[in-house]
């Protein structure tokens, strides 16, 4: 017995992927993996946008997914550039060892 897939299925999947990404950002110490988790979060957003684009029968959601991908690519490039600069100066990639601004 297979039920047809509704927009709710896509929203639950997208919420699950978003929560997995959030868990990665909040718990991992390795900055590279934190950046990968951010990519997961942005992909969850894209799934949601596409599902609603189909739901309302309009492609605006897909256009916004393109913008989200653009921002994600820019973010990854800048984030990895920062990571390289950080590794050159501090010799670490552990997020909780970078505490220059901590009080």
């Amino acid at each position, binding site marked *: 017995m*297979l*039920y*047809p*897939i*509704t*927009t*709710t*299925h*896509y*929203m639950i*999947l997208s*919420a*699950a*992927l978003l929560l*997995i*990404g*959030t*868990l*990665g950002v*909040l*718990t*991992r*110490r*390795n900055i590279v*993996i934190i*950046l*990968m*988790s951010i*990519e*997961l979060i942005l*992909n969850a957003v894209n*799934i949601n946008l*596409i599902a609603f*684009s*189909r*739901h309302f*029968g*309009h*492609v*605006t959601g*897909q*256009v916004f*997914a*393109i913008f989200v*991908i*653009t921002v*994600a690519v*820019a*973010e*990854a*490039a*800048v984030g*990895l*550039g*920062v*990571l*390289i600069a950080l*590794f050159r100066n501090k010799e670490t*990639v552990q*997020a909780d060892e970078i505490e220059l601004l901590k009080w």
Partner: protein
Amino acid sequence: MLDTVFFYIFAFVTLLGGILTISRRNAVHSAISLIVSLVGVAGLFLLQKAEFLFAVQIVLYIGGVMVLFLFVIMLVNLDEAAKLRQFNKQWWLALAAVAAVGALVYYFLRQGAPALRLAAPVTPSGEGNVETIAKVLFEDYLLPFEVASLLLLAAIVGSVIMAKKRV
């Protein structure tokens, strides 16, 4: 019927890849798991009749961003990092918070489920998906499109300056 089967396959691939991404010790394994997850998302795009975004996802994410990640993993020495503790001290708090938000989201999605039956596909006429997107993108959203090019320029300059040895 076939759609349902494919949805569950792609959803499983996506979530499994995501879980492996945040739980692997070796960063290269994480990157490969992320590729698996992104392929699953691309399959979901195809299932939703978004062919253009399917192609963009494959070319840009799996071809571009992941190569960038793998380059940086090889540039930055992660062998010592793999031997250290992988999760920070507040992991139980983060897990509890994420579980609470997940339960809340699930509850409200179940509440609103009857309103969200899937509509017909976006482009029923002879017009293709790429054409429809291009029309909307270059007519209604031309200014955001141009601003996105500025954003990419700023990102290129910024990342080159960040990664340079001496500014």
